[in-house]
């Protein structure tokens, strides 16, 4: 059973008198353990796709099965629950809470899980997630005390903390330089390889998309191409390997 199954998804925005067809019938299956890069220029509909995949928005028409369950017509609160449990988000702008430690930032999704875990358990899980991205020693740092790459890895830890089946990364390297971009991509790759987590990456950069196992090109609300890819290793010669915490 695929993790994600899109069936003839359309999305229409009404902007005043204009109708914008952001998606015009997208069908797509993504299996567990895939690292899918969705590429396309701005206005191609890839952001809309990411919103629908992330259960932040509902399609105008069509069906979206997440782990076999149709989520295309759920209520806002039901979608919130699904986002909380099954999807981990990584944003371009990191979106960490200021004046809040890395550990507390990672803990935030657990605050909205029902039933709520005891504080000690939340803390332990957040710590484990931070260690998974190699930032166990930065737990009590505030975002402004961390580098861009470290901040994004905190965000990845936050996406991981509730053990989702899917990580959605929306331009995760958009605000990073090349070197740190590679660090982040390497972290994502390792998550897929070692944890078997499904990753969907949205980007407009072809060289970032190349880190995935499958590349889907989107244009004008339709899938232009969909092909398997031999993932580019995140090991540039000029980049010193990032120490990763021992996983497993």
């Amino acid at each position: 059973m695929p993790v994600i199954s899109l069936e003839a998804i359309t999305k229409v925005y009404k902007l005043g008198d204009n109708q914008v067809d952001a998606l015009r019938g997208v069908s797509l299956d993504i299996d567990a353990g895939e690292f899918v890069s969705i590429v396309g220029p701005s206005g191609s509909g890839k952001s809309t796709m990411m919103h629908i995949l992330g259960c932040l928005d509902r399609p105008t028409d069509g069906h979206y099965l997440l782990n076999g369950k149709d989520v295309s017509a759920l209520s806002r609160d039901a979608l919130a629950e699904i986002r909380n449990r099954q999807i981990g988000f990584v944003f371009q702008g990191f979106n960490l809470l200021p004046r809040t430690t890395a550990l507390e930032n990672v803990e935030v999704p657990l605050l909205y899980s029902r039933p709520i875990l005891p504080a000690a358990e939340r803390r332990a899980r957040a710590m484990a997630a931070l260690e998974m991205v190699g930032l166990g020693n930065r737990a009590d740092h505030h975002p402004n005390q961390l580098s861009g790459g470290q901040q994004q890895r905190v965000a990845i830890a936050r996406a991981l903390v509730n053990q989702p089946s899917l990580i959605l990364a929306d331009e995760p390297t958009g605000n990073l330089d090349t070197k740190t971009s590679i660090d982040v991509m390497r972290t994502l790759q390792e998550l897929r390889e070692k944890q078997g987590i499904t990753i969907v990456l949205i980007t407009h950069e072809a060289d970032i998309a190349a880190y995935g196992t499958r590349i889907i090109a989107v244009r004008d609300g339709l899938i232009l191409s969909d092909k398997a890819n031999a993932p580019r290793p995140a090991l540039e010669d000029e980049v010193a390997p990032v120490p990763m915490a021992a996983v497993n």
Partner: protein
Amino acid sequence: MRSFRQFLLLAFQALLRNRTQAALAMLGMTAGVGALVTSLALGRGAQDALDEQLRAAGANLIVVTAGNYAVKTDTSVDPEANIGHSLGALEPRWEHPAGAPRAMRAAFSGRLNSQVRDAGFSDAVLRVDESGLEDGFVSVHFEDDPMAVHDHPTAAQRLGDSSAGLGSAATLTRADAKAIAAIDGVRFVVSGVHENERIFVQETPLHRQWFTRMHGTEADLPQIRNGWTMVYGHFLTKADVDQGTQVAVLGRVVADHMFGKGVNPVGQTILLWHQPFKVIGVVGSRSWADQPAPGDDQFDAFYVPVSTIDNLLNLSKLNNIAVTTTSVGDTTKVAKAITDLLRQRHKITQAMPDDFTVTSVAQQVLGKGLSPALARMVTGNMASVDNMTVASLSASLKRTNRTMLALLGGVAIVSLLVGGIGVMNLLLLSVTQRTREVGLRMALGARQGDIAVQFVLEAVLLSVIGGLLGIALGVAASGSLQKFFQWSAVVSPLSAAMAVAVAALIGTVFSVYPAQRAARLDPIEALRHE
């Protein structure tokens, strides 16, 4: 709710982010709660003032006096034959306060009941025992007399005469007082023996004497005499009364005369019946309306433990028993209960009249500074100062305060509304500032309710802090009103708690709109918000 602390912390951080606006919004709440607390305090104060006035006026005081003035019986009735009945006719002259005790003394000195009336007028026989003078102290033990029966099964068998003038009849005992204390609704019970005695100070250079009023009493008397203040020392203690120690508390007039004006006589010794009594305190009046003056009953007087008199004179009879009730409204009920109890204790059958008199002292209100309208209402219901009367009194007093309370209440409501609008304004600002954060939280799984609760909590936190400051303001305002304008204001913990609850409620109500606005944000739009 285990994440409640996190949410509270978040709310606190959010408030700190907009310190100035938060402080201004809080100020509105503080003013509102302050005004509310003050108006509640004034309302409560007015109520308490009324009760206090009635209490001070003695409306809750019941005096049980030995003997029954109202009873008129035939003088020719033989006391011994008329068991249990009131004895003797009541001559007007017997009501003279000094007359009655003398009569009692005379009774034993003559050792014959039949001689009582005749002997009573002779000062010569006063304190003369058959045994004569012994070392200057006349022991006065009429109850030692085997001829005297002092077990009082009925009034008629007692020494004395149940109709021998108010207070002079020997029908009340300290055991009666103890029994009265057990009645429901009774607050204080004070036994009283009242006589006129001569006291001396022997130490040179004073060497003075004074013929004045002696009150044998108990430790609770100051609780009944609201207008009293201790000028020096302290009043009789319970231990003094229990052990019958030879101590005395002087009235201001007596102290001034015996030891000189402005001299603290505590620790000095006075002689009564040639026995030394240590002075332990001086009572004066707290009220300008009731200044100590020679000849008055309270301050041209001295107080000794009733038990000491009993020990020295073996005199267990009381002239009266003063009783106060817990509530003014209970006076009638308690007076009735006392009558029933004493009739039972004195084995008075239905056909016989009381050998005591129960009076409630509501009459005194006229002279004690109540407004004429209130005094009329009290005296109009003198016989039964009951709950109805108290309720109607309260109503009349409340009317006079209504305008003021309405004004303050109005200020409170308007301030609270302004405070609420301030809170709403602050929250709207906060929602705008934190739109991106709201979007992120939604993406991470916050339900609409979680977001709304976050903002409501922020408002409640602000309101409660403002409310607590408001209580402080209200207490200060009430205190100053009391101090500078002599308005009676009482801040009760309940009203303070209520005021904070009202503030929290208003904060909640006014946070609903901003909280809803935050909860209804579109997560995608919110995430894009800069």
